[in-house]
């Protein structure tokens, strides 16, 4: 009996060690459950940081899901404000929610945004047998009858995926944006199955979410929301060249605690730049449908402020904030 007890104790000790280990030096918080974009950012950047020798031990990834990233944000602000060995995955969703005050009283200036090193271009996609051939066709149909086109996307109402078609419609001079139908499902792939199944007429999401479906020919992309066509997907036209001046890129990057020194901030900016320049990251981007989108250091912060201001205006209009 003694022996089995020891065995039980050993097993539980081993498992608790694995679960709560803090033996690694650098920690990357993915503010979501494993499986999403933030988790990808942490794991991929963490792996490359170690592989190219920027850090000397594997980066430990902590999943801190909660409040769409708000839990991680408030934890970093309240408890880890001066931790120079902490990085947190961020994306457009982070700024969208900050703009919509979805993190309680938190504001963007409570942390320091290090940079973005890749962007997932926004796309608007239809099933292969859809009557819409161009983005213009779809916009005309919505103008004629806003209820005729329903969008599915991977974010909740008011999230970044919801914003994308609305930005296009605003650019086309259509203002009744609350009449546009949108359902938020569990992720981009789910949104595609709803669209291919004919339950919704279009899917709004990120390029990485549609790569496999584009290759298999089950869906057609009407537009990509970038300045230039995306390398590797040159046959997908931009919204811009179809006359809708909209750019919506879901950037992938990091923020660090607000209380760290400028020298530590610069250290992270340099490390992130090194990841952006590495062959490993380029390979990871290509495999996952990310387009180059590098803004690291000082400029990034001012760009973030601008994006937040824009998002706030649009959110007020669709009624997700007062």
């Amino acid at each position, binding site marked *: 009996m003694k022996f089995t007890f020891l065995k039980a104790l050993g097993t*539980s000790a081993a498992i608790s060690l694995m679960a709560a280990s803090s033996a690694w030096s650098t920690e990357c918080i993915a503010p979501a459950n494993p499986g999403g974009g933030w988790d990808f950012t942490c794991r991929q950047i963490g792996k490359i940081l170690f592989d190219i020798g920027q850090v000397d031990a594997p980066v430990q990834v902590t999943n801190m899901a909660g409040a769409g990233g708000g839990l991680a944000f408030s934890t970093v602000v309240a408890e880890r404000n001066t931790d120079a060995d902490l990085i947190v995955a961020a994306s457009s969703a982070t700024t969208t929610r900050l703009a919509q005050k979805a993190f309680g009283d938190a504001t963007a200036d409570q942390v320091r945004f290090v940079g973005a090193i890749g962007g997932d271009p926004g796309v608007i996609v239809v099933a292969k047998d859809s009557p819409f051939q161009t983005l213009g066709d779809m916009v005309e149909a919505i103008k004629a009858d806003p209820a005729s086109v329903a969008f599915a996307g991977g974010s909740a109402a008011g999230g970044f995926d919801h914003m994308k078609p609305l930005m296009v419609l605003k650019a086309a001079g259509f203002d009744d944006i609350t009449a546009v139908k949108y359902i938020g499902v569990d992720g981009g792939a789910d949104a595609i199955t709803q669209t*291919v199944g004919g339950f919704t007429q279009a899917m709004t999401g990120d390029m990485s979410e549609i790569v496999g479906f584009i290759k298999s020919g089950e869906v057609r992309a009407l537009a990509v929301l970038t300045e230039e066509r995306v390398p590797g997907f040159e046959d997908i036209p931009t919204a811009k060249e179809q006359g809708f001046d909209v750019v919506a890129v879901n950037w992938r990057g990091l923020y660090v605690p607000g209380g760290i020194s400028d020298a530590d901030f610069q250290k992270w900016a340099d490390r992130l730049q090194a990841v952006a320049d590495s062959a490993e990251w380029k390979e990871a981007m290509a495999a996952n449908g990310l387009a180059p989108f590098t803004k690291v250091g000082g400029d990034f912060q001012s760009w973030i402020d601008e994006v937040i201001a824009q998002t706030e205006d649009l959110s007020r209009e669709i009624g997700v904030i007062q």
Partner: protein
Amino acid sequence: MDLFSNLALGFGVALSPMTLFLAVVGCFLGTIIGALPGLGPSNGVAILIPITFSLGLDATAALVLLTSVYYGAMYGGRISSILLNIPGDEPAMMTTLDGYPMAKNGRAGDALVISGVASFVGALLATLALALVAPYLARIAYKFGPAEYFALYALAFATLGGMASNNQAKAALASFIGLAIALIGLDNNSGFTRFTGGNLHLSDGVDFLVAIVGLFAVSEVFVFIETHGKSSAVGVTLGKVTVPWKDLWETRWTMLRSSAVGFVAGILPGAGASLGSFMTYMMEKGIAGEKGGFGTGVAKGVAAPEAGNNAAAGGALVPMLTLGVPGSGTTAVLLAVLMTLNITPGPTLFTDRPDVVWGLIASLLIANFVLLAMNVPMVKVFVKILMVPPAILLPGVTMISFVGIYSLSGSYFDLVLMIAFGVMGYAFRKMDIPTVPVILGILLGYQMENNLRHAMTLSGGEWTYLFSSPIASVLWVAAILGFFAPIFLRRFLKKPQLTED
């Protein structure tokens, strides 16, 4: 003969000494992780991700290790369900209903063997189906829109009443409490939070693992303290483990039916293993009728949910590999691993990376046989872990539960919530209210509401949309039959069994 050349390719990848070793390690770890309450397949796999990276495993080896853990955990969950009446993970919840009564009747060994074999049958058939028809089956997901999903969840709820047959009103009350808890958090359709009181920890809702561990494990601790260990569930003894050939033969159809239903439930994203084990249990209970004695500790009652949840685990790999849609928490984690290894699941995965797909299928087949060996002849090794005296075991289980729950989001708030659920579970036991429907309410309520709201958005508020497709209509008919049949049939059958303990 495509299948054979593909399988040959797969076994070529999987049958190296290193991958075989990883499969055995993964199965062993998975079984333990599954058996420990609070540590389920999804956090078990998540915990092991950093290890695969620091070991520098390649894509196939990493997948072999992690999927062995996944399958292993699906097997292991039943061990604590049967011996402790505490489900090791959420799909094993239904196994407590007959598994624990069997153990109390002195048939713990039989229950473990029957459920182990049922797990094997379910997982093996699901893996074969995955190999044979995955690309075609993926199409099923395209047939399910909001209206169909809503009807599916309605069917699950309609059959709930039949579960605790001694008092349907109490079961209904419990499931409504679960549904109410599911409302907490961010409302996907308006972007606002509900019932959170401004607490950020609640804005993603209540994690059902927190509820399960609280309602089952923590409340067990309270009962244990109150009775000084006298009437606690813990401490079932296990004699010699023999193979109950007769029971296995009698449950053969149950296992086959449950595997098929579980597999389909697994394919549907959002339904998953828990719905698979629930539906198969209710289906078998319905087929057996009042005379079947479900809930008193019958072989079919352990065979059905175990075949169902293991088949669902295999089924959930279908949408993950072919569409990139994770059908469950664990497949979401596996998806993340694939993406990190620069493999993007989707419609082209089978043609682009046959080595990965067929290597995975081959290693699943291998893992399955390893698991059968571990869980039937060698089951005593795992049982011994749970056979220490209750006064030592229970604090240990509690500690592991705390660690497991803490690892979910790394916040103490979940621990407080878990204890609150423990108090609720204790109160429910005193009032003889079943706790399983609470969990199902939390588990399914969120999806059920979301799909109803989506359906209403798409149809512009027209309720007939819910019945507008043949699939939805069939599911509704089944739901209505499932709800009313027990009420009317009861008059013609013997009086309801009184079996809750």
